[in-house]
């Protein structure tokens, strides 16, 4: 089964492939995301349970003592889940105010901060912690507000926000394609994190387009996997690794289960 076939009808299905063996954990993706999407810096960024990062970088290790210790990094944007039946995305289906929606055209899970009432039910529904609450009014000290991007609305206190796969860039690419005629070119719609990654660990594109690098890479790597596939969130962020211990940390397994025995997704 091709990866694109996992998803329902729709013109595009934008997705991401992250090669964990290439990721150095430099954090450039996170920084680029924050600058691109007007994510502020809170008073206390040491409190990671309240700091906002649409692209969060998890450091994991194999649990062994030196010198066998191995470290890897899991970059985690919003995974833009589709669910398995009728676009049953965990967060979209629970929002009482339709402040988050699943876009049939692109497969992108949107977030409408001006409609969000701050009930945080979507935060409870997401197992990836991809959703952040604005617990504070974001401070923009010393004229930093003048550096805000005009393409993304800054969020107010009390609402939930999350990665949108730089949806504003999709709109810009769509406009460009309309003016110039033709389809959206792969290079015209790339997320900020993808472009910022110095080691080329992140690849972004349309899973429906056989010409896109992501589709080719996924076809060449049938072992690509997703986070918590057993929960059937059917998300669109794929990972690659050659290390078994990293692969195993991408999902939950019972003590007796071995990786090949598990039918994921």
């Amino acid at each position, binding site marked *: 089964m091709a990866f694109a076939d996992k998803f329902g009808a729709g013109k595009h299905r934008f997705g991401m492939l992250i090669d964990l063996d290439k990721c150095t954990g430099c954090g450039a993706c996170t920084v680029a995301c924050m600058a691109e999407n007007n994510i502020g810096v809170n008073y206390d960024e040491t*409190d990671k*349970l*309240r700091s906002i990062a649409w692209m969060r970088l*998890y450091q*994991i290790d194999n649990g062994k003592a030196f010198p066998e210790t191995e470290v890897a990094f*899991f970059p985690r944007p919003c995974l833009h*889940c589709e669910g398995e039946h009728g676009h*049953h995305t*965990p967060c979209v*289906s*629970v*929002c*009482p*105010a*339709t*402040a988050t929606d699943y876009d049939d055209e692109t497969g992108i899970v949107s977030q409408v901060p001006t*409609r*969000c*009432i*701050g*009930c*945080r*039910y979507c*935060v*409870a*529904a*997401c*197992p*990836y*912690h991809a*959703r*952040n*609450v*604005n*617990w*504070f*009014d974001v401070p923009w000290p010393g004229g930093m507000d003048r550096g805000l991007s005009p393409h993304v609305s800054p969020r*107010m*206190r*009390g*609402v*939930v926000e999350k990665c949108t796969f730089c949806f504003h860039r999709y709109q810009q690419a769509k406009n460009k394609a309309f003016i110039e005629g033709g389809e959206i070119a792969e290079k015209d719609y790339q997320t900020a994190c993808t472009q910022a990654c110095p080691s080329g660990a992140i690849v972004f594109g349309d899973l429906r387009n056989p010409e896109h690098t992501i589709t080719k890479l996924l076809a060449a790597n049938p072992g690509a996997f997703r*986070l*918590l596939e*057993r*929960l*059937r*969130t059917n998300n669109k962020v794929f990972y690659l690794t050659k290390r078994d211990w990293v692969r*195993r*940390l*991408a*999902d*939950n*397994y*019972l*003590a007796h*289960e071995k990786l090949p025995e*598990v039918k994921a997704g």
Partner: protein
Amino acid sequence: MPMDDSRYWPQGTTRCKPIPFLIWMAFCLLLGGWAMHSATLCLWKGLNQTAMNDFFAFGVWIVVDLAIIALGAGAFFTGFMTYVLRREELKNIINAAVIIGFICYSGAILMLGIDIGQPIRGWFGFWHANVHSMLTEVMFCITTYLIVLIIEFVPLVLENRQINKVPDLAFFAHHLHRIMIVFAATGTFLSFFHQGSLGGMFGVLYARPFAYRTGVAIWPWTFFLFILSAIASGPSFTTLMVMLTEKASGRKLTTHKVKMMMGKVSGYLLTFYLILKGADTLYWANVTLPQMGVSFWDMYRSSYGIYLVWLELGLFGVVPAFLLLHRRVRESYGLLALAMILNCLGAVTNRFVFTIQPLAIPVLPFEKWQFYWPTIPEWGISFGVIAYGLIIFSLAYRYLPVFPQEVELNK
């Protein structure tokens, strides 16, 4: 006497002197003041005043909300038994049940107004309603049921000795009473569904192994279990409040037979609930969880250990069910109260476990268990809701003819 308010007391009853009553009110208002201060902090400075975070999206307010809504279920279920099933003897306790229901639902809505991050947008749930969300259903049903409760409460307020002297108001109250079956039935329908939706809220979280439950059609099993646990504990809570008022006032308010009947209803429903809850837990532990790659024991660690199961289903489940099923226990005032307290604690523990525990558990294998303890403003608002309930119930008891048997029983 300038402070004499006896002309407002229900006909043929006596109440404590104004001074002790005012001292009691002052104590409740003090708690209310703490809540007001806490609410101001949270509304002015934001939800950063709480201990909630991106792990604990819900905190003690949602626990209290769910708990008081479950315990307030005494209103709709007693109304159902009184007006629809025609259990005449329950007319002696229905007023108290309605007042408690009104307190619980209005208190919960007040609390939710502070709990949501953008309270001014609270109405978006109605305007931009997502029909797939259990929370949308909860919002619609809670607000409409509160309106029903107000309609059920109004005739009682109008029956105050002085207000009832106004002929038009007395006429209105009398006729509102006569059509109460319509509202009791409507209330039953609304309450039944949103008690279920509150359970469904957690059961549909299919990416949260602790909360997720399979079910029938669009309803996870928690939908039905929450209804059952609410109607099992609601009558107990109503009766407990009556007992508490009896102890505080030193007067008998209903016959013991009425309390025994409420206990019997609670006992049978609790037993039925426990059988289904046991089956649900076994299926969840042996089928649902392993499919997700986690074991039952993975769900109970850190501060949220297996003791919670023993508490919820054992001490606060099987024990009160066993006690309430026995007539000799129900005949004893003290044992009946004890069994009912345990029963209510079971509902509260269940709501706590479903609200907090799914969020404490790390679903990503490389995350850690988290622990939540509320801040002072969170406690302030929680106790404030209790104080609000005490104020309303105390005023209602003092000035309204809540208990039809009171005059007869205290001759």
